[in-house]
Each structure stands twice: as structure tokens, then as C-alpha cells.
């Protein structure tokens, strides 16, 4: 358990950056920016959106289960990193979920409607909608509390649904909406708005770098058909996590794997998972479409938690169940190759203590937990474990899309990430391996704001890139290399 935040920290975390006129106009005091929210009759519109969603989905039967069995035992309170930091009872997971469950009970169950009529209760009010708009974005949807609920309430699912309904009445963080708009309707078709020529330039540049560093021609194959894997990293990695991508490419080169990046679509990010099933659906379809266009056999996701989860769990949901292409995370591929002996890693390169942060979206349901640890232990001199970890890990504090909302950074690094920072501090590690674009961004900001600058946040493939040993046969021959040096080219020109 962690110490609650001080009053000073609270003020810092909740300090709003928006102007009073804006707040007055949107009539909503939330800490994130929104675009064109519906202002009048919010409660009514919320109920309409809720009804539309219930009509077309199966959420109703899940909510029935939760409404009937919620025991209010308050066990989940001990698990939530947000509540542990704020100690504001409104951050108790069961309270948060009750916000939505009570609307369901009152407006969509017979008993609730009768009781409401008899007792003359007003039902949902605009204030309640506002409270939800704040509360569902305080939660990082990490689902740690779910493991501790004896009656099996999945607060991550309730938060997910709450945000979906809110987004249908125009209340969603602008950061996520804009990116999704560019991805689905924009010219570049990806969340970072990277045009294809710029992508190709970047990759070429990285290839040159790698050849210089490793003496091996490491390629990013583009638009190749019939590959085993079509690769979708979080597209922001092309701008911010070059080391991770170079690690991916190095691994595929060393193992002779068949993979490609498609210029038709190359973004693993799916903010639909954070605020709208409707978008989630449309985005996973783009991934599958591109994979089919290139006649690829499997979808390979880069180091990114939510991209992995949204592909792994929602490609089958939205793209034809068993007929959909299988989804593999790049760490799984790396692990298999290591076991087959196709990768050699130098055990003398990474000597500082290393620890591993489980991204919630990869570990919570028990998907990939031991593999990255085994990989790290195989070549890092000193590996330290965080506690708790694995399925029961603590969220970085930027989960559920909140990391992309820059205006709430003070909240994320004082409240959401407080527990994580203390956990990392205890390990004394130099490297925190976080195989997720979101976790990396959040953890870097967290380390900076918590004054832990000597900790380095890296991807698993970043370290692998440093330590990888290539077979001599792959090395570019001396003469070959000389030919390509600038002088050689100049000479030729002369």
C-alpha cells in the first residue's frame, strides 16, 4: 500500500489548464479537452445513446449480472492505484461502476422503473452525466480491481461501456478523437499522420544506421506479398521508439523470418479500445484488410499493450472468428526464436540491473507474462522482479488511453503513476523494460516528474538490439562495405 498524496500534490494534480470561458461554454468541468460536446439535455441524450447500445449489443445481460450480485464489500478499494493515491471514496472502483449501474437499474430494469415511479425519483440528471464524464477518465481501465472482486465485476468493462456511451453524446478526450479521425478518415490513415514517403525515408535512414552499427544489412521489407507476418507497431514508434523497431528488424534479419510492413496501412494503435466499440471495430478491420491485401498469414503486433490486446481479442470478434488471421505479439516471436536457438544474445552487454513492467493489456488476462522475463534473464546480468507483477501487476498510471491526453499529465504522474513509481524505486533498477508505447511514454514522464531521472525506460527489443550477435555469414564483406562509403562513391563519380 502506498501513502496517499499530500494536499499540495492534489492541487497540482487537479489544476485545470482550461480557461473559465471554455468551461462555462461546454458546461463540463473535466480535466481533458473535448470537442463540440452536446450541452443541452445531456441526461436525455445519454439515455438515448445507452438504449441504442443496449439494443445492439450484449452489454445488458452483463449489467444485469452486476446489478444483481454487487456485494459492496469494498475489497476492490485496496487494489486500485488511483484510489490508493487519492483516498477519495469516489475513486473506489465499485463506486465508479455504480454510477453507470444505477442508471441501468433505474432506467432499463422493470423493478427500477417501478421503484422510480413510486418514489418519484427524477432519474438521471445532467450532474450525474458530468460526474461520469470525470470519473470514467480517472480510471485507467487497468482491470486490476477485477481480479479481487469476489462476484466477478469487471470494472474495466463498465468503464469501457461508460466511455462508449459518453462518446456517443460527444464527450470524449479530443486527443483520442482527433487521432482516430485521422486514422479512419484522414489523408495519411494513421494516428500520427505520417505520410508514406516520410515513413519510407525514416526506415531507410534506420537501415543505414543499423548497417553502420552492426555491419549487417538489416532491412524493413516493404509491401512484400505472401509473408508469414504483416507488421503493425504503434505508429508513434516510427517517430519515437526507433530502437525498438531496429530491434524488431534485427531479430527478423538474424532469424531469416518472413515479414513485411504494408504501405496501405501500418498502424497498430486502436483508440477505439479506449472510448468506442464502433471505432474499435472499424480500426481492427483496417488491420485485417491490409493483411489480406498483402496475402500475409499472421498479424504481428509490435511492442504495444493496447495494440496487442485490441488485435488479439477483437480481430476474431469483428473479423470472422476462426477465419480471421491469427495475431502474434513480437515478444512471442522472439521467444520462440530464442528457444529454437536462432538468436544469439551477448550476456556481457547489459550489466546494469533490469526490471520488467507488465503492460496491463498484455498481462492481466494471463497472456504474455513469463516469456519476456525468460528472454531478459537469458542475457541480462542482473534481473530484478517487481512486486506485485504478472497478472496482478500495477498499472503504469497512463492506461486506458489517458497517456495520450497531455493536459492531464500532472494527474497521471502524481496520482495514476504514484504506486508504479514507488514500485520501480524499490527495485533499484537502471532499466525498466516496458514493451508498450503507452507505458513507455507514461513511465518516462513519471520518472521525470518524480525526480527519478537515472532510470531508463526501454523496450525489450531495444536491449535485444544492443546485445544481438549476428552470424558471420550475414556480415557485409569488407570490400562490399568500402564500396559504399562516401569516398568510394565520390571516387566512382570522379
Amino acid at each position: 500500500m502506498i501513502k496517499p498524496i499530500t494536499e499540495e500534490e492534489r492541487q497540482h494534480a487537479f489544476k485545470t489548464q482550461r480557461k473559465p470561458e471554455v468551461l462555462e461554454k461546454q458546461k463540463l468541468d473535466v480535466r481533458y479537452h473535448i470537442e463540440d460536446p452536446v450541452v443541452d439535455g445531456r441526461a436525455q441524450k445519454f439515455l438515448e445513446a445507452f438504449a441504442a447500445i443496449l439494443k445492439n449489443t450484449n452489454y445488458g445481460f452483463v449489467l444485469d449480472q452486476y446489478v444483481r450480485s454487487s456485494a459492496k464489500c469494498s475489497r476492490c478499494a485496496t487494489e486500485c492505484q488511483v484510489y490508493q493515491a487519492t483516498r477519495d471514496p469516489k475513486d473506489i472502483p465499485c463506486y465508479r461502476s455504480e454510477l453507470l449501474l444505477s442508471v441501468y437499474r433505474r432506467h432499463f430494469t422493470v423493478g427500477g422503473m417501478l421503484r422510480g415511479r413510486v418514489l418519484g425519483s427524477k432519474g438521471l440528471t445532467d450532474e450525474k452525466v458530468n460526474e461520469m464524464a470525470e470519473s470514467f477518465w480517472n480510471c485507467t481501465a487497468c482491470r486490476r480491481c477485477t481480479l479481487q472482486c469476489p462476484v466477478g465485476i469487471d470494472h474495466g468493462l463498465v468503464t469501457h461501456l461508460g466511455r462508449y456511451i459518453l462518446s456517443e453524446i460527444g464527450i470524449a478526450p479530443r486527443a483520442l478523437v482527433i487521432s482516430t479521425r485521422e486514422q479512419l478518415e484522414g489523408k495519411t490513415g494513421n494516428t500520427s499522420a505520417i505520410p508514406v514517403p516520410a515513413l519510407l525515408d525514416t526506415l531507410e535512414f534506420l537501415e543505414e544506421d543499423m548497417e553502420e552499427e552492426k555491419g549487417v544489412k538489416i532491412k524493413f521489407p516493404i509491401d512484400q506479398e505472401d509473408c508469414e507476418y504483416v507488421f503493425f507497431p504503434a505508429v508513434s514508434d516510427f517517430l519515437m521508439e526507433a530502437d525498438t523497431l531496429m530491434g524488431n528488424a534485427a531479430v527478423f534479419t538474424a532469424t531469416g523470418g518472413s515479414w513485411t510492413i504494408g504501405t496501405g496501412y501500418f498502424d497498430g494503435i486502436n483508440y477505439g479500445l479506449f472510448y468506442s466499440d464502433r471505432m474499435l471495430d472499424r480500426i481492427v478491420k483496417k488491420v485485417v484488410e491490409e493483411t489480406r491485401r498483402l496475402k500475409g498469414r499472421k498479424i504481428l503486433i509490435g511492442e504495444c499493450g493496447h495494440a496487442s490486446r485490441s488485435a488479439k481479442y477483437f480481430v476474431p470478434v469483428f473479423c470472422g472468428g476462426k477465419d480471421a488471421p491469427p495475431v502474434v505479439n513480437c515478444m512471442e516471436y522472439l521467444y520462440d526464436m530464442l528457444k529454437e536457438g536462432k538468436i544469439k544474445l551477448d550476456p556481457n552487454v547489459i550489466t546494469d540491473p533490469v526490471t520488467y513492467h507488465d503492460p496491463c493489456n498484455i498481462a492481466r488476462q494471463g497472456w504474455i507474462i513469463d516469456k519476456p522475463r525468460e528472454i531478459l534473464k537469458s542475457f541480462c546480468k542482473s534481473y530484478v522482479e517487481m512486486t506485485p507483477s504478472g497478472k496482478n501487476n500495477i498499472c503504469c498510471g497512463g492506461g486506458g488511453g489517458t497517456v495520450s491526453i497531455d493536459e492531464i499529465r500532472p494527474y497521471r504522474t502524481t496520482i495514476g503513476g504514484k504506486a508504479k513509481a514507488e514500485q520501480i524505486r524499490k527495485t533499484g533498477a537502471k532499466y525498466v523494460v516496458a514493451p508498450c508505447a503507452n507505458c513507455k511514454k507514461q513511465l518516462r514522464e513519471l520518472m521525470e516528474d518524480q525526480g527519478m531521472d537515472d532510470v531508463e525506460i526501454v523496450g525489450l527489443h531495444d536491449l535485444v538490439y544492443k546485445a544481438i550477435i549476428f552470424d558471420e555469414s550475414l556480415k557485409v564483406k569488407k570490400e562490399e562495405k568500402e564500396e559504399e562509403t562516401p569516398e568510394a562513391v565520390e571516387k566512382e563519380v570522379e
Partner: protein
Amino acid sequence: MQPLMDFVAGPLFRLTFAIMLLGLLRIVVLTVWGVIQARRQTDDKVMPWKLITENTLGWLVPVLRLWKTRPIYSVVSFVFHIGLILVPIFLIGHIQLIRESIGIGWPVLSDNLADILTIVTMVTAVALFLGRLFSKEARFISRPQDYVWPVLLAIPFATGYVCNNMAIGAGVYQWTMLFHMLSAELIFVFIPFTKIAHCVLVPFSQMVSTLGWKFPPRSGEGVAETLGKKEMPV
């Protein structure tokens, strides 16, 4: 007095018991139906059965899961549930009544054990009540029924214990017994309509939550259409 006793022990008992059974049956049927529907509608039929079973069974022995974070609470609530389930079903007095009326019976708890369990159940009920009252978190999220239940559940245990173990006059005995039966019947009636419904829902909870994430494939388009947003930009 006797006619009242007969009524409470006879027709009223049967009525309330039937309400409980039918009410619980209704919930189970609805839940199973929901599970079948959800499974039918989704394209992703793969269920992580191992994980679901593990989690479902894990919660049958919650002490194992919780002793780290809330040791006292976890033991207390576990013991409370044990007594709550075992005593009414395996008490010799109850079994005799059942045998007399419908002719079947099953093994019973020894008197001593039953007494101990009864006391333990009462004590833990009080502890849970106080725990709720004095925990800031629990108090904040509690509804009235959350306070009423531990008290209500303890009443049949207390009255039953008095009748079985204390030297009391026939008159007092009758009244206590009446109170015993009435409180139990009140409990029967409320079970299906309150949080105690978790007694039949918990086995389904992990499955339901798993299926909750398996959306019907065209749900998004459906929502857009219902809301008239089909052609609207993101």
C-alpha cells in the same frame, strides 16, 4: 398460538420457500439464456475455459486469494459463509422436519459442531456489520440492504440457538421459535431480489464477464444506425 405456528410452519413456509426457489431459478435461467445468446451472437467462440474455471473455483476459497491484502476480513467472511450455508442445511432438527414431511434426509452435523458453527456465524455476522460500519470505504458505497443483511441473517441463528440450548419456558420457546421461522421466511423472500442472489450468480460471473468483451460483430454499425449516425464523420 398453535394455529399461527402451524400456519407459519406450514403454508407460509412453503410459500416463501417457493418464492425463493422460483426467484433464484428465474435468475439462473435468465443468466444461462444470456450466456447462450451472447455466445451465439459473437463470432469469437473461443473461451478461455481454463482461466474461467480457475477464477471461478478460486473464489470458492477466497481466503487463498485475499489473505495478503485483507487478512482479517477474508477469514471472517469465509467462515461466515461456511456457517451460513452448512448450519441450515445440515442441522439435525431441520433434517428431522424434512424427513417427516417429504420422507428424505441426509447426513447431519453433530450437535456440538452445529452449535459451534452457529456461534461462529453470529459472531462473524456482527463482525461484518461492524466492519462495514467502521470502514470508511465500505461505508461510502453501502446501501441500506448491506447493513440489514448481516443482522437479518443472524436472527434465525440466534433464535435457533436459544431454542436448542437454553432452558426456557414453553411460552417463550414458542415465541422464539415463531420469530425464528418468520425471520427465515423473510430471508427466503428477499434472497432472489437482493444482493444475496450472488449465491447462484457467482458460478457464472467469470463467464459472463469474459463474454461481455465478445461483442456482436455488427454491433457498431447497429448503434450508428439506431442513433442516425451512419454517414457522420468520426
